[in-house]
């Protein structure tokens, strides 16, 4: 009797379930949409930043070139930058920037690559555990501290070695060497990533043919990681070009077209920092000029960054 009642109740519930109206259509979720839009806006700030940079640089540069004292041709060909006598040729600044960057690469490439190869091909776990934090520490030191180091440590040594008359108090060499130290961690870590990404079985194959560790590293692993190493070097170069504090402190404060690394010569970044560090009146030609220099700087570094990314994308060996 009781069983029957229960059974019929169950049947009723089942029937109810089957007849229940189920609506699975999408309905707008206002809250979700608002959140999604907000998050998208957060991401879009980066686009605004880029647009802002390009817009600001272009606008004020246009004002700069509109000045009767400046012409575009003169800007790129004149070898003198002397705002006081209305000479605006960016060449000396670019030249000093490139000198610093090349000296820096001369330091950072061998040191950074050597470190990367040592860490990825030779070092034991214990050695890595000690050496990697040291490299990260080097990368974390503020650049102004490196500037201090260049001016108060490296420059006196250079002057001691090459002579007080040969080496000026402010000189490109000291700045370049220290910028090199500063970008070494970039070369080292990015290259090490590329080297470690080379599959171990390539190394095994090489050892199996009777290659030594060095032969394996230099003839198999490094070539296989070449695109990554190249990209790392380009990123480092771009950092060297954009580096400000070391050159502002150690490279000198006068635009100077010279090939002598022991002379003072102001870089693009150094010049921007010096001009804007003083009391800058808006609308003056000095004020506008930093935007024109900034524009050149921006495009050089942007070009390098895009190049590095392309290299990584295009030439990466695909191992399954």
């Amino acid at each position, binding site marked *: 009797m009781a069983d029957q009642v229960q059974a019929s109740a169950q049947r009723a519930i089942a029937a109810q379930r089957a007849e229940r109206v189920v609506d699975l259509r999408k309905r707008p*979720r206002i809250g*979700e949409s608002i959140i*999604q839009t907000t*998050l*998208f806006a*957060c*991401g*879009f*700030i*980066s*686009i605004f*930043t880029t647009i*802002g*940079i390009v817009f*600001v640089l272009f606008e004020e540069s246009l004002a700069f070139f509109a000045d009767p004292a400046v012409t575009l041709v003169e800007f790129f060909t004149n070898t003198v930058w002397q705002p006081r006598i209305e000479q605006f040729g960016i060449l000396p600044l670019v030249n000093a920037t490139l000198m610093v960057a090349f000296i820096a690469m001369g330091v950072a490439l061998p*040191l950074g690559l*050597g*470190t990367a*190869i*040592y860490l990825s091909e*030779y*070092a034991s776990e214990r050695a890595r555990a000690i*050496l990697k934090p*040291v490299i990260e520490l080097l990368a*974390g*030191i*503020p*650049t*102004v*501290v490196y500037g*201090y180091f260049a001016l*108060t*440590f490296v420059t006196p040594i250079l002057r001691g070695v090459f002579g007080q008359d040969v080496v000026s108090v402010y000189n490109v060499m000291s700045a370049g060497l220290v910028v090199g*130290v500063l970008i070494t961690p970039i070369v080292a870590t990015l290259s090490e990533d590329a080297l470690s990404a080379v599959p171990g079985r390539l190394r095994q194959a090489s050892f199996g043919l009777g290659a*030594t*560790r*060095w032969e394996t590293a230099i003839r198999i692993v490094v070539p296989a990681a070449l695109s990554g190493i190249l990209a790392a070097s380009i*990123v480092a170069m*771009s*950092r060297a070009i*954009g*580096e*400000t*504090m070391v050159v*502002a*402190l150690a490279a000198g404060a006068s635009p100077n077209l010279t090939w002598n690394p022991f002379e003072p010569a102001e870089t693009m*970044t150094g010049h*921007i*920092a010096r001009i*804007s560090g003083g009391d*800058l009146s*808006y609308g003056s030609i000095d004020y506008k000029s*930093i935007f024109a220099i*900034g524009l050149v*700087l*921006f495009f050089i*570094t*942007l070009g390098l*960054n895009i190049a590095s*990314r392309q290299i990584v994308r295009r030439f990466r060996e695909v191992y399954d």
Partner: protein
Amino acid sequence: MSAETNASSERSTGTLPQGEAVRQNVAQRQRRGRVWEVVLFASTVVGIVILVMLAFNIVNDAFGGIAVQSVVEEEDLTDGRRLEDLSQPELIAILEANLRSRVLRNLERERPLAERDEGELIDIINQEIIKPEVVAIYPLSEFLFNRAAIEAELAEAFPRAELQFKSWLNWNFIVSPMSSNPTQAGIRTAILGTLFLLLLTVLIAFPLGIGAAIYLEEYNADKPFDERSPVGRWLNRTIQRAAGLIETNIYNLSGVPSIIYGILGLAIFVRALEPFTSGAIFGATEGVTANGRTILSAALTMSLLVLPVVIIASQEAIRAVPSSLRQASYGLGATKWQTVWKIVLPNALPGILTGTILAISRAIGETAPLIVIGASTFIVTDPDGLFSKFTVLPLQIYNWTSRPQEEFRAIAAAAIIVLLILLLSLNAAAIMLRNYLRSKRIST
């Protein structure tokens, strides 16, 4: 062995070393390999060596000896007794005997000498009569290991000078405001400015960065509009393109030199938005003197600078959350945001925090953009609001380093030590925070 292989063919295939030649060949290659290993190891060690030199350089300058010379010796004033042992009337007598009457009158007018206690009188005697002055400074290494030469040199140039140890890094240095006299200058204003700027930057960049990272990682493949209508399809495609653009753009922005951000901040925050960033539209009065070169402008600039790095670090942390967790949540009927808020973010938080704190702590070492937006280098008032003028430690270091006097170099070195300690403790805090959050998640 391979002799038969060679013999069986007509054409030559060159020769591999055989027998003893193999041995020599291998030995030679192994030697070359060892030489290179030493070279590689050396280049790795150079990093450590540079770090040591850097530390030596800073410590060497931040501590050392100073030669102090007084106009009048204490003993000459007091007949060999110590000032501290003298009574108040005796001190007044010394003042009256050695100061010009006009100076004495001024002091009396401020407050009669007889009403002042011994400590105050001794201070006046020190400042007005003894007048100790630093006549030479020596780095630590010379002070310690070249004492004899220094003393000989001093005896010649400043026979009355007294050589003493000086730590430029001391409590006074940390709590005193700026001063044009290096022996009295301090970094109180700069430390406060640095901390304040850091806090503001975190408050601005952190939510924006995480928001962007969530969008790029979780909503990237989303199609918010109706796929059935052409307009919806077009909108969806546009949004996805924009997201792709944002990704590339973030990478490129992370490579833009920091000084360019300074230029951007100068043009936008300092100039174009001056009414806002100077606080003028909020009726702030102090901002009028700061001209938009306020700590708010600096924080906005710094936020844009660190944003790409914060986004990339957060993206990595979010990506590390296993997708099985997300699927479990969706499987229970959670919406996207519920999944993100309840599942993804709590799991990604330790990673996000460490990554972003490390990224933002980089920003407190940044100097170039602040130079460009025109942070003050000489102010004595503490930053007290969004619209106040400010200075930061790296700027002080830059400013002092660029002066030729050795005293300024010394306090620059002392300020560097403070900056590095600040940086290290921030990093340590980030790591501890991560470990704490991790342990909490495991135990619950």
